[in-house]
């Protein structure tokens, strides 16, 4: 099983993700520069956090035109696992792989803190190792994390159980306290909190590790079939 971590100019949580997959989960991981165009040999594709293109124009707005994006779109269509964290989530909404948009925090300030989330749907590739309604600690660090979508989209997300995580004590004004969602097909996840920052007890939480392990377990079984 191979993992690709996409590196956009300005990504800065790519090494953190790399360490989580490589050192802790002991998987085969590659950095893939945004100028590449082929992701065929990868099973899991990660769009990490950071400030791609400096967040200029809008966070994720310029990254969506990077050469690698076509390969990411075809991989999503082919059912591969796509994980978009923070800036990665922003890029996924900008290019339409996930609905909605991420706007400036209600407080207008950057916020970095531990964050309690509630697991709303534990029957997905990403959350099958959590209990339903479990409270988990996965830190946030963002200035533009306010999730927004129109009423119709919100209705649809609820109906299809696409909301995976909700904030307890909403830090940024996200609609319906939404912290993370998946696409209809269930293979693309976007979330603002950083699971790669919660993979070691030394750093206070391993709830992020549970998410990554859920993904891998699922992928492993899927390939077996």
């Amino acid at each position, binding site marked *: 099983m191979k993992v690709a971590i996409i590196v956009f100019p300005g990504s800065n949580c790519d090494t953190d993700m790399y360490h989580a997959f490589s050192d802790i989960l002991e998987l085969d991981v590659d950095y893939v520069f945004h100028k590449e165009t082929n992701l065929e040999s990868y099973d899991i594709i990660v769009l990490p956090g950071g400030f791609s293109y400096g967040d200029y*124009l*809008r966070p994720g*707005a*310029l990254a969506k*035109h990077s050469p690698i994006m076509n390969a990411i779109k075809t991989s999503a269509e082919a059912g591969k696992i796509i994980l978009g964290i923070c800036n990665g989530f922003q890029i996924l909404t*900008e290019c339409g792989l996930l609905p*909605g*948009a991420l*706007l*400036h*925090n*209600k*407080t*207008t300030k950057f916020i970095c803190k531990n964050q309690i989330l509630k697991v709303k749907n534990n029957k997905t590739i990403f959350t099958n190792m959590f209990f339903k309604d479990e409270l988990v600690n996965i830190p946030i660090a963002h200035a533009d994390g306010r999730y*927004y*979508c*129109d009423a119709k989209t919100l209705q649809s997300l609820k109906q299809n159980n696409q909301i995976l995580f909700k904030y307890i004590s909403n830090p940024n*004004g996200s609609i319906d306290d939404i912290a993370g969602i998946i696409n209809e097909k269930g293979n693309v996840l976007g979330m603002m909190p950083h699971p790669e920052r919660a993979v070691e007890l030394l750093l206070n939480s391993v709830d992020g590790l549970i998410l990554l392990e859920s993904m891998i377990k699922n992928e492993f079984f899927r390939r077996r079939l």
Partner: protein
Amino acid sequence: MEVDVRIFIMPKEEILDPAAKAVSKTLQNLGYDISQVNLGKCIDLKIKKDEDIRERIEEICQKVLVNELTEDYYYSILH
């Protein structure tokens, strides 16, 4: 031949704009009788003049400059 294009991008009305709220509050605290503030962006382009220039500007806006879910835009071509 190039023309100057000025594009205004504003957040959609229904979306909360906390930055605009903060500016409005500051102005009110200073004694100005302000009822509303909206913060947007202004982008100036120099682009080669062409037959279908309006089409190309629309394309540029929709493809790159504007998030149509959350923003409205209008532009003027300066001759």
